[in-house]
């Protein structure tokens, strides 16, 4: 038997602008104002159920919904890429519920929602970067009790975090934390920069754009105002350093961007490619070529032969 489901002809009008109701947005907005006034302090907020599961960016989506206006242009990235499921569905969510323009270009966006990367291109004053945060509390794996971590932040008691980094050195000979690398903000609060690779930590320091962090499951919001001092924790004899690669991007040949390793087959062949797809595309359009680009005359094997 044939069954039909009648959707309302104009479904989007059944929602308030940007999905959340006005009272919820006001509550989030008040939390955001406190968050920028106390950089890196985690403001509790009454996080709502969103039409997507926890872990898919419900915190970031709620922050974006509270901030976004009809004239904004939204870009969403997931690990630097605009075209992954998470990024595409969040972009469509706001295109539908807020009717805003969306873009994949970093320079065109006024709001960039991100899952664990900061775009390679330097952000401007008129841009807002919204992070999706899974676990906002940097001390959580060291101290599971919220009452205790609150107290530790209140008393600026961060010795335990340094012990953790020291244990890394004792065990591995270097600080082995490569993502969610803790930072000290304005010499006061230790903050989890969300699971961004530590490669991105230096970009947070003194950034011209406003940075907002939303954790949906944990119901916390925190922020970094522009031009705020953000220092990665380290030791005098083991200074903080970012990842480097011997390879270049296989597509655009970039040496200065964060590279993802892509396994090509089961023979051990692999390539490295920019994690930031917009940055890579723009470089390719400008004529930059890496060894694995499809119109590169020298394939990997040919290039190695030429090198011999």
């Amino acid at each position: 038997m044939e069954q039909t489901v009648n959707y309302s002809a104009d479904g989007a009008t059944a929602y308030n602008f940007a999905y959340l109701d006005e009272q919820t947005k006001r509550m989030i907005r008040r939390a955001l104002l406190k968050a920028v006034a106390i950089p890196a302090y985690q403001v509790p907020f009454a996080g709502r159920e969103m039409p997507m599961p926890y872990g898919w960016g419900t915190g970031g989506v709620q922050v974006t919904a509270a901030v976004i206006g009809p004239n904004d242009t939204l870009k969403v990235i997931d690990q630097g890429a605009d075209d992954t499921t998470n990024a595409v569905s969040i972009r469509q969510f706001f295109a539908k519920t807020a009717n805003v323009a969306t873009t994949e270009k970093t320079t065109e966006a006024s709001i960039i929602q991100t899952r664990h990367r900061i775009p390679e291109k330097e952000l401007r004053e008129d841009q807002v970067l919204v992070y999706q945060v899974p676990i906002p509390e940097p001390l959580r794996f060291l101290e599971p009790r919220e009452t205790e971590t609150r107290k530790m932040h209140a008393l600026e008691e961060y010795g335990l975090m340094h012990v953790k980094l020291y244990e890394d050195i004792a065990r591995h000979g270097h600080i082995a934390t490569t993502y969610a690398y803790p930072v000290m903000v304005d010499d006061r609060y230790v903050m989890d920069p969300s699971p961004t690779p530590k490669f991105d930590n230096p970009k947070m320091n003194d950034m011209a754009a406003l940075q907002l962090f939303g954790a949906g499951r944990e119901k916390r919001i925190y922020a970094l105002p522009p031009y705020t001092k953000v220092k990665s924790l380290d030791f005098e004899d083991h200074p903080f350093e970012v990842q480097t690669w011997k390879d270049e991007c296989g597509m655009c040949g970039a040496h200065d961007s964060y590279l993802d390793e892509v396994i090509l087959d089961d023979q051990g062949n692999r390539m490295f490619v920019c994690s930031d797809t917009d940055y890579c595309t723009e470089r390719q359009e400008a004529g930059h070529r890496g060894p694995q680009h499809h119109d590169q005359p020298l394939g990997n094997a040919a290039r190695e032969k030429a090198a011999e």
Partner: protein
Amino acid sequence: MTLQSQTSELLPGFEHTAFDSNAVFRVLLDALSRPGRIYDLPVSVATPDGLNATTTATLLAMADMDTTIWLSPSCKTKAANDHLKFHCGCPISDDVVMADFAVARMDDDLSFVSRLSVGNAEYPDQSATLILMVDEISNAPAMKLTGPGIKDSHDLEIKNLPASFHVWRAENHHLFPCGVDVIFTSPTQIVALSRTTRIEVI
């Protein structure tokens, strides 16, 4: 009949709630994340006696049944009271200690500011925000501001700012992370001082 005569005196709120409150919030967010930078009020709103347009818009955008408002005696007109009660549905308290947002004029007796809630060390966000109505804001070099949100430094002048304000503000700054954030509202412009902002009076 009485109901009709009451509501007919009411002024309208935002023309479009979602868009206007968003526009005002964005200005407040920018103002608090870039202390000392002056922003224009992005919307026009009807203003009840006792408040100015910027203050009215700020409260319409931010206040609701979850926020207690305190109005200084010179702001607490019947029109202001009715306007906020009707459009925001917010409790209006006579006890300044209860206030989430405290509203006053620059020429009021400002001794109440020391009684505003500053939050506590574990929850410094449970603090009040002070909205001070002023005549004129400019970038003249009367104060030099530094701190998070400010590249190098910003100059700011608030006309007729009393010396006692700076004494209170200096104490307030020492309480960090506790403290009160201040929003100055002229009839058309907004500028904010976050609790992190360091002020050097020139």
